[in-house]
């Protein structure tokens, strides 16, 4: 097993930076698809170290950020019910719905629990046969297989008090939507390595060809990012646009067949709304009809929720790479991690959170200290 330090070695980083500098001859705009990559870039100051000609545009790949407000409001409503134990990964708890978040629901008496795996939620269902256990199944191709596996297991074990509130999204349709946008400046993509470790590379050559963009599969450590940028810049300078795997230690071209089979069995492709962006055709998964009994949307008829997106929030533009977080008027003033307008400010993979946490020092606009909500 490789340890993290080996992928943060300053000497190797300097070497890659030198190669990028000696390769680049004109400006290029690269989009890193995944929010995890965005955080690595900002946390380690990689964007500060790259030559000025290489601009990194932050993409829509934060699963928490793109979960539609309507789904979050449904989650809040279901989690408030006394018969429900609502289970979620930790970083969904601070994401604002209309007027409140899951933390607030918990403080109001809702049984909201943080789990580290959907299978933990299934265990809770087994231990609490008289309660309804709902797991918030969100995310990209990375989290979809374990969530699918959990539903598969629930049915296999005959567990009836478990369901999934599903809002899964897929990367390739998002890439297509970004490239079709009239304002698109993206010339190449650093694809999300963990997505490809599940799905393989098969979905990407057609996109690279159709839009004439290099797509380089990239990991998440600083050296992974620099190697991804280096390979992307080499392609751009040569006028090439192919799919290149710069993350072979995790990604096989065929992906993970067992995970793919589980997805195929449990989910089906559907149109999906992305928070701040809108509906992207074919960009999501929902439970297949034979698993409908495990779909929380069917089990809990939620009606009468009044979903209202804050007018000032421009996270949709941030997620499409049209706006840098600190260029938003609300950034660091009315919108902070404590008083977030959108999920991008609180998610651990959100671009606005990355800029707020790590970059306040050297931005044009220095964020003032937050006003206290206490007292």
């Amino acid at each position, binding site marked *: 097993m490789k340890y993290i330090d080996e992928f943060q070695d300053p000497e190797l980083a300097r070497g890659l930076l030198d190669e990028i500098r000696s390769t680049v001859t004109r400006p290029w705009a690269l989009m890193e698809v995944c929010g995890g990559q965005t955080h690595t870039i900002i946390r380690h100051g990689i964007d500060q170290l790259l030559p000025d000609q290489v601009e990194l545009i932050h993409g829509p790949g934060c699963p928490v950020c793109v979960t539609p407000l309507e789904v979050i409001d449904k989650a809040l409503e279901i989690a408030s019910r006394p018969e429900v134990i609502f289970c979620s*990964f930790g*970083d969904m708890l601070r994401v604002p719905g209309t007027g409140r978040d899951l933390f607030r629901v918990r403080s109001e008496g809702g049984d909201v629990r943080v789990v*580290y795996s959907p299978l933990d939620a299934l265990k809770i269902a087994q231990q609490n046969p008289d309660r309804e256990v709902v797991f918030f199944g969100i995310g990209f191709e990375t989290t979809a297989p374990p969530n699918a596996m959990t539903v598969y297991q629930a049915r296999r074990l005959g567990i009836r008090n478990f369901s999934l509130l599903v809002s899964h999204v897929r990367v390739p349709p998002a890439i297509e939507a970004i490239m079709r946008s009239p304002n698109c400046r993206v010339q190449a993509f650093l694809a999300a390595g963990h997505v490809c470790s599940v799905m393989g590379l098969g979905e990407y050559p057609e996109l690279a060809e159709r839009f004439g963009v290099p797509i380089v599969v990239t990991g998440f450590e600083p050296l992974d990012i620099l190697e991804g940028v280096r390979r992307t810049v080499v392609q751009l300078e040569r006028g090439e646009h192919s799919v290149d795997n710069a993350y072979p230690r995790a990604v096989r071209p065929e992906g993970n067949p067992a995970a793919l089979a589980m997805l195929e069995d449990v989910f089906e492709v559907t149109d999906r709304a992305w928070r701040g962006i809108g509906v992207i055709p074919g960009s999501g998964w929902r439970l297949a009809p034979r698993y409908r009994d495990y779909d929380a949307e069917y089990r809990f008829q939620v009606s009468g929720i009044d979903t209202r997106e804050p007018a000032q929030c421009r996270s949709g533009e941030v997620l499409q790479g049209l706006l840098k977080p600190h260029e938003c008027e609300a950034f660091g003033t009315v919108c902070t991690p404590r008083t977030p307008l959108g999920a991008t400010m609180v998610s651990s993979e959100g671009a606005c959170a990355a800029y707020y946490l790590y*970059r*306040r020092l050297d931005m044009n606009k220095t964020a003032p200290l937050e006003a206290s909500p*206490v007292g």
Partner: protein
Amino acid sequence: MGHGGGGALSAELVQHIFAPAFGGDTLAQLGDSASVQLGGARLAFSTDSFVVRPLFFPGGSIGDLAVNGTVNDLAMSGARAAYLSCGFILEEGVELSVVARVAEAFGAAAREAGVEVVTGDTKVVEAGHGDGIFINTAGIGLIPPGVDLRPQRVVPGDVVIVSGAIGVHGVAIMSVREGLEFGVEIASDCAALGGLVEAMLAVTPDLHVLRDPTRGGLAASLNEIAAASGTGVLIQERHVPVPAPVANACAILGLDPMYVANEGKLVAFVPREHADAVLDAMRAHPLGRDAAVIGAAVDAHPGMVVARTGLGGTRVVDLPVGEQLPRIC
């Protein structure tokens, strides 16, 4: 829950509700312990409550924590703890054998720290209204003459030293609480720091400030010092000692070791001219073997903590809002 996480929310609860309601200049200093004059003696006085789950974990228990937590708060004033009080709040139904084990651990930790438990209290709450055992401790100790530890004494140029590996306690607790296994067992670093602080003060009483970075981790302590002193703090990220198992566990969970709790570590701001000698003294003590210089107080960015990243970039190290949350993927 965020108001108990040791981050910005905790600080605001204290600053905006408790401190104004209670008043008093000593409290307003908001140190880990209060320095009070009583007759001719300058005393350090501190209290802390312990609500950890599970009650027993690799490297310690709630009993050890309840002693060491208060002993360490006193040590951060330069005082060696002398007397300790002990309040047990038991939940109806908790096994007496469990209470006995915790009490044994409490007593053993007190003896090891050289502190006498002189008064106590026991209460029982109904089943469902507690978490097995809660403990409150309060302690007093004598501050030696010439010792004046407080963030207001920090000046640009001070060297920042940590006494050893960070993030260990928080990851140890997480590994047992959440049933996570990281390939190697990580034991809590829970320990009493009075002896280490004495060894440091023996080199020079002119240490500027000490903090034990518990909840909120190293990042919270550095931010508190930066804010209270009005100086900037610049740390070299690669010099912060993070053991590989902690780094790997944090990477898996999407946590930053800088924000993970510690229990037997301290961070010191030391005048530059004394830094080498203090570091040597720390390394000669068993609890400071892995002490390391991680940065300095600086003129730039007053009140703010900034890290030079391993690759050569810079980033702000902010006060956490509440507790860190493990991420989705």
